[in-house]
């Protein structure tokens, strides 16, 4: 594909594609990250889009962005500040100007910088000047007129021609990072199998962009060599898909049918969609009439002997509250996934937050313990979904798995596991020797009751939401109620024995322990690595098992002079830790903007804390 000038080799780069929500930026970013993954780079992505499907064109509120961070070494965050911004309109400059590295490259569609678009974005005449970006590497590319020109004899309607603008921009970025076009070309052929003229138009625009970038000689091509990652098979996967697959894997391992009962809600819908598509593996998906039907159908499916799952997001979790109580009382296996978003109420549906923690732990009537887990990265959603199912089945309990918008939509390369490597899952079926079947008779060690499936002769029994004796008889006897409450509580507490200890990254003693849970892991890890390189004595502990907590927490905490809890809320986990470990002082680093932390924020706050005498 033509001559190549000298490359600059770089260790990592952050690219942000940004445009109107109809400009196809999510697809552009996904295609770029898939190509980078195929090349062997490590990467992390962060899609950021408005809740409106088509917000008013040209406005800052309607800007949809997709950030890709790729590297020659390990990448743990989608990157805070961009090296390259692709801006399809002036509003995209407005939305991203504060997120650019000094001297970064800005490629923008100069045809879209019309007077009206400039005004809509809140500028007067020249966005570049008004943002003081003149000294950056600014490439004003007339993308709209060039795709029109490239496709002028193609016989496509003007609308379809304009839809290829994103491919032109993508072509430019491919040239800039020395990537092959073949993956994207194959994608176009697959996607538009029945409309070959559209496939061809997109490919023409892609190549036109690629050659344009080469011709203008204003861009310096950058090479980011493959990351030295472990041998094996990899794929790109986002958190929602990984969560869905974790459940499918667990069901197969346990020899159970998988049932999902859910109701569409952003950003959890992807889990239901993926499971609905997996009929080839026998997944039974039920889109309920509401969130309550979602969880209640799942409870019914669990009673009937399935691995049952219900997925939702904050407001939906609130609606499922009574259902969770029923599952706890019935002591049936159930996994509830809460993909957290900005709250309260409808809040920020497409943005990320960790503010459902207290709801997950305590948001029910009565003494109502459930196991609470939190995933940390898009790929480990698979692992924690699998673990959630394993614990739910083997301990006959409800497990609440916390993910969030950042994990759900973010993607990264994933070392594909083999089913044979995953731990066994053994459902505690009631056995015939136990006849007559006693519904709430418990395993001596784990305290789980046994699972008798309708259809099994001789094990007919009744369970439900009323307090019962061991035999399943409704009982108002005061001592029985207290006994059963304690049994349910102790059963969940004993899950501690099955979970791994809390890990510390860095030294096991030091000046400052940064504590996080769930999806802040990547940004915290990068922060701690950089702080340590800069000579600070800082370590990291990130929790995935929230309730019950790992048994070594006290030990870990006691070896640090200071402890700071970082979370995307006002301090829910910090308060939870205070409740459990009153002897320690917990500092807090918080942010609640619907966005993840930046590495810079964590580092600056950590250094400030280290300076406190």
């Amino acid at each position, binding site marked *: 594909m033509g001559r190549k000038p000298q490359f600059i080799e770089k260790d990592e780069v952050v690219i942000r594609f940004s445009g109107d929500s109809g400009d196809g930026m999510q697809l552009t970013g996904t295609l770029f990250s898939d190509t980078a993954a195929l090349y062997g780079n490590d990467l992390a992505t962060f899609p950021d889009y408005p809740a409106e499907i088509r917000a008013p064109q040209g406005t800052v509120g309607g800007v949809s962005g997709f950030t890709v961070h790729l590297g020659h070494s390990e990448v743990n965050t989608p990157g805070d500040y961009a090296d390259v911004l692709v801006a399809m309109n002036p509003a995209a400059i407005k939305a991203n100007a504060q997120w650019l590295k000094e001297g970064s490259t800005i490629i923008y569609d100069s045809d879209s910088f019309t007077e009206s678009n400039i005004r809509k974005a809140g500028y007067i005449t020249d966005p570049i000047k008004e943002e003081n970006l003149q000294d950056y590497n600014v490439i004003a590319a007339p993308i709209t007129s060039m795709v029109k020109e490239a496709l002028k004899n193609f016989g496509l309607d003007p609308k379809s021609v304009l839809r290829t603008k994103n491919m032109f921009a993508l072509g430019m970025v491919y040239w800039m990072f020395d990537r092959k076009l073949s993956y994207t070309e194959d994608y176009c052929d697959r996607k538009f199998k029945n409309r070959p003229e559209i496939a061809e138009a997109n490919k023409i625009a892609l190549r036109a962009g690629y050659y344009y970038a080469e011709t203008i000689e204003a861009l310096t091509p950058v090479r980011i060599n493959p990351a030295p990652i472990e041998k094996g098979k990899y794929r790109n996967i986002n958190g929602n898909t990984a969560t869905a697959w974790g459940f499918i894997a667990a069901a197969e391992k346990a020899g159970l049918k998988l049932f999902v009962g859910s109701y569409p809600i952003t950003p959890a819908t992807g889990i239901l969609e993926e499971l609905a598509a997996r009929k*080839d593996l026998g997944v039974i998906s039920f889109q309920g009439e509401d969130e309550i039907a979602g969880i209640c159908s799942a409870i*019914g499916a669990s009673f009937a002997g399935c691995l049952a799952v219900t997925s939702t997001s904050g407001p939906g979790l609130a609606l499922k509250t009574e259902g969770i109580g029923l599952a706890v009382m019935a002591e049936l296996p159930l996994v509830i996934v809460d993909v957290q978003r900005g709250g309260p109420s409808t809040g920020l549906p497409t943005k990320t937050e960790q503010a459902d923690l207290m709801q997950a732990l305590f948001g029910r009537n009565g003494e109502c313990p459930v196991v609470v887990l939190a995933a940390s990265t898009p790929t480990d959603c698979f692992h924690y979904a699998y673990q959630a199912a394993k614990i739910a089945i083997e301990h006959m309990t409800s497990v609440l798995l916390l993910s969030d918008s950042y994990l759900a939509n973010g993607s990264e390369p994933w070392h594909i596991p083999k089913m044979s490597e995953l731990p066994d899952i053994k459902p505690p079926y009631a056995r015939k020797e136990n006849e007559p079947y006693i519904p709430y008779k418990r395993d001596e060690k784990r305290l789980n009751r046994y699972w008798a499936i309708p259809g099994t002769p001789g094990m007919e029994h009744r369970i439900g939401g009323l307090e019962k004796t061991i035999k399943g008889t409704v009982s108002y006897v005061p001592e029985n109620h207290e006994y059963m409450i304690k049994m349910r509580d102790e059963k969940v507490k004993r899950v501690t024995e099955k979970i791994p200890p809390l890990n510390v990254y860095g030294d096991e003693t030091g000046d400052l322990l940064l504590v996080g849970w769930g999806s802040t892991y990547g940004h915290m890890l990068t922060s701690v690595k950089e702080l340590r390189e800069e000579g600070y004595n800082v370590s990291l502990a990130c929790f995935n098992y929230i309730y019950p907590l790992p048994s070594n927490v006290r030990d870990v905490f006691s070896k640090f002079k200071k402890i700071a809890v970082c979370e995307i809320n006002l301090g829910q986990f910090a308060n939870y830790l205070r409740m459990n470990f009153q002897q320690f002082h917990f500092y807090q680093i918080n942010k609640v903007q619907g966005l993840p932390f930046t590495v810079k924020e964590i580092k600056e706050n950590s250094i400030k804390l280290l300076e406190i005498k």
Partner: protein
Amino acid sequence: MEDKSDLKYSPKDFKSDQEVRWCPGCGNHAILASIQKALSELGVPKEKYVFVSGIGCSSRLPYYMNTYGFHGIHGRAAAIATGVKTVNPDLSVWVITGDGDSLAIGGNHFIHAIRRNIDINIILFNNEIYGLTKGQYSPTSNKGLVTKTSPFGTVEEPFSVGELVIGAKGKFFARTVDNNINLTTEILVEAARHKGTSVVEVLQNCVIFNDGIHDVVAGKDVRDDRTIILRHGEPMLFGKDRKSGLILEGLKLKVVRIGEKGIKEKDILVHNAHEPNPGIHYFLANMRYPEYPVALGVIRSVEGETYEAAVAEQIKRVKEKSEIKCVDDLLESGTVFVVE
């Protein structure tokens, strides 16, 4: 569901060891007896029955059945039952519910279960009152009813169960009265054998909070003249003397007397429960005393694809076509790259 007619059960095989705790004189006792009798006639193995309920007096029934049972939460029995039946179509799934449970708090699950036509039997005990919470008006209470939460009479229009069922695209609707065990048993057997959602409304007496609410139509001395028992293929006749009947006049049903104004028996409508068009079923279900007799029996019973069968069929079809046969196949499907 397998039908083994050689299975011999008697009603008492379905009695659990639990003490029945409904008020003496409550209509639920007779309904429980009818259900146990119907089950003994169905020829389904006992372990295949699942009784699911919500909250309310009626919803205690699963505890009194020696079958699998799940006592759920208020209004959600239809949703729980949907999960049970969808994952195991081989089970005979029954929902025991009341007018408050299914038409107020559980209205959404009720109409959507019916719309999906999942093969469950919903037995709705309609006493037009909240009994377990001690006497508040329900969505089926007649306008003006004085209760603890309507001390000056309700100002709300009540739901008609049959109208709601038909509006939700219901394919099976029947009505019976608690104290008529033979009729209730006959209807329950038919409801159980119907493939799809069967709704049976049982006019049930709450002896404490709404005593005698159905007596005006279902009282022993008046019921022959004020109710009509519909049976598929039979003329719509009623009355002690079986001389009263229904005809269609324009777009309305009309009560006539055979032998009066030249009406002969052949003029009387013949009940066709299997007619897909719900028009006449809607009229029949909505008949109110004193203008009409109240319709009992199977008012509507129309075949249609069931939800769980459609789900199973779709899974089977997709499985046959897909190259993904196990999770390892799935994990390696699509774009996979190898690092060497």
